């Protein structure tokens, strides 16, 4: 069976920035292979839907989920205590395809930054460009550096790192990289895809959509793509969350 629901022991669930929490779960499942860019579907007691959270890290027997409180479900998650078990369906979705012989730029904004830590660990000396609205939201800078990534930081208001957008930094460095992987708000993804198209660089983007089953059965998390010249609906949970930027109809 490809899918299984697992009861994972909660090791830590600390706040690391404004409304952002770092959940660490014991991943004692040697049979489990998690790819970067995949997600975990977390059961929240009392809620009808699971919460899809991208995998921030899955190294050394620890599953790390860094999430932002966006509503009732994630607020309940933030109150979960070390020692309890968390019901998790994983690994789900199609993640980033990483070629070890390429130089990558991982470009990410806000709560799109977490999946890039595990992704950075799969790349050889990647350039990671992170963007946040403001200093109070900055996360994972030390982790990314420890993973061997050259890490650049910018904020919209200039309170941390360089003032400006991630695409400004991408334009300056795009000539030295082979491929771009991006995760963040849709306007950012659209802008990154534009820069890559102009520079002729391949670009993979991780998308988000309100999700149901998480495995491709209920068809709610639709995204419009172009395939062989024809527009059709694919689904973030199964076909994605990572898509080739060229195929996505924004």
């Amino acid at each position, binding site marked *: *069976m490809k899918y299984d629901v697992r009861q994972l022991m909660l090791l830590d669930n600390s706040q690391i920035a404004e409304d952002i929490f770092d959940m660490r779960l014991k991943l004692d499942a040697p049979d489990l292979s998690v790819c970067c860019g995949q997600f975990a579907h977390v*059961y929240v007691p009392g809620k*009808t839907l*699971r919460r899809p959270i991208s995998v921030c890290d899955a190294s050394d027997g620890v599953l790390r989920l860094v999430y932002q409180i966006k509503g009732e479900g994630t607020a309940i998650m933030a109150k979960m205590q070390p020692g309890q078990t968390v019901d998790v369906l994983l690994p789900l979705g199609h993640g980033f395809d990483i070629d070890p012989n390429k130089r990558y730029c991982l470009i990410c904004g806000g709560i799109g930054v977490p999946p890039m830590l595990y992704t950075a660990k799969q790349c050889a000396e990647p350039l990671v460009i992170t963007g946040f609205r403001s200093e109070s939201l900055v996360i994972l800078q030390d982790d990314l550096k420890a993973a061997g990534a050259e890490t650049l930081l910018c904020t919209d208001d200039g309170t941390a790192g360089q003032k400006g957008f991630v695409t400004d930094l991408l334009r300056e460095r795009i000539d030295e990289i082979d491929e771009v992987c991006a995760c963040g708000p849709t306007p950012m993804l659209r802008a990154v895809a534009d820069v890559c198209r102009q520079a002729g660089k391949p670009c993979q983007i991780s998308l988000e959509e309100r999700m*149901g089953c998480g495995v491709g059965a209920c*068809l709610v*998390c*639709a*995204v419009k793509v172009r395939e062989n010249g024809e527009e059709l609906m694919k689904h973030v949970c199964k076909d994605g969350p990572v898509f080739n930027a060229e195929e996505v109809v924004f």
Partner: protein
Amino acid sequence: MADLSVKVAGVTFNNPLIAASGTFGFGREYSEFYPLEKLGGISCKGITPTRRDGNPPPRIAETPSGILNAVGLQNPGVDAFIRDDLPWLKQQNTVVIANIAGNTPEEYCLMAEKLSATDVDMIEMNISCPNVKNGGVQFGTSCESVGAITAAVRRHCTKPLVVKLSPNVADIASIAKAAEASGADALSMINTLTGMRIDINSRRPIIRNNTGGLSGAAIFPVAVRMVWQAANAVDIPIIGMGGISTWEDAAEMLMAGATALQIGTVLFSDPYAPIKINEGLNSFLDKNGITSVTELTATVQPW
């Protein structure tokens, strides 16, 4: 070990738990959790004469004890279903129910005819989808239209015909009678209740279709009431659904008058729910010295 098998319109199900249309695709995804033969049957994603891409997202919103959805019948079309999915489904050792949804009576008839020539076990006629502009629920909300479309499809359908009823009606008993009188072999009910949620910051409906169908535990008491009212009005069997989440819910729905059950929304939090519900039902039957699950049907003793 009690006998969990049930019979609806001549079709035997190994147990009363059927995956509800729209929550289970064509079964392939959930077959990666457990063999589908553990289910009594599968009601497939609603199909239309030709491919439909469905509504733009967002298509789902959570509600207290439930969800709203407006997928808009995304499906590959009846011919692709017959060619690509049915042969695989028929190898899964479970009852296969094709669910059809059209814009016009002619479209329903065309699909019923095509599917009657295949080895699907039953046809479920969806005249209760609240999320499409044409067809769907408009056929399901008056006795005249339910009677007319059921009679028309009946003439083209050689398979057992299940009519899936909408809860968005004033008098469910009369609608159920109209379907029975026009040739339905069974009823399935209830489809979703039309609902709406608004994001108070953007003042936009959360669902792009503005309204959606409410399902999940929130609608369970409404479903029990409607199944009970319909069961009192007709002699044909009823496949009960609407928010069944536990084995206790399943027993309740059977007692209200259902012969078999469909479950859907609970799968999203617990993919194994049908298996757990069957286990719970079995224990309940054993504990009470009941040898067959069929003995629960319509045994509620109203005040």
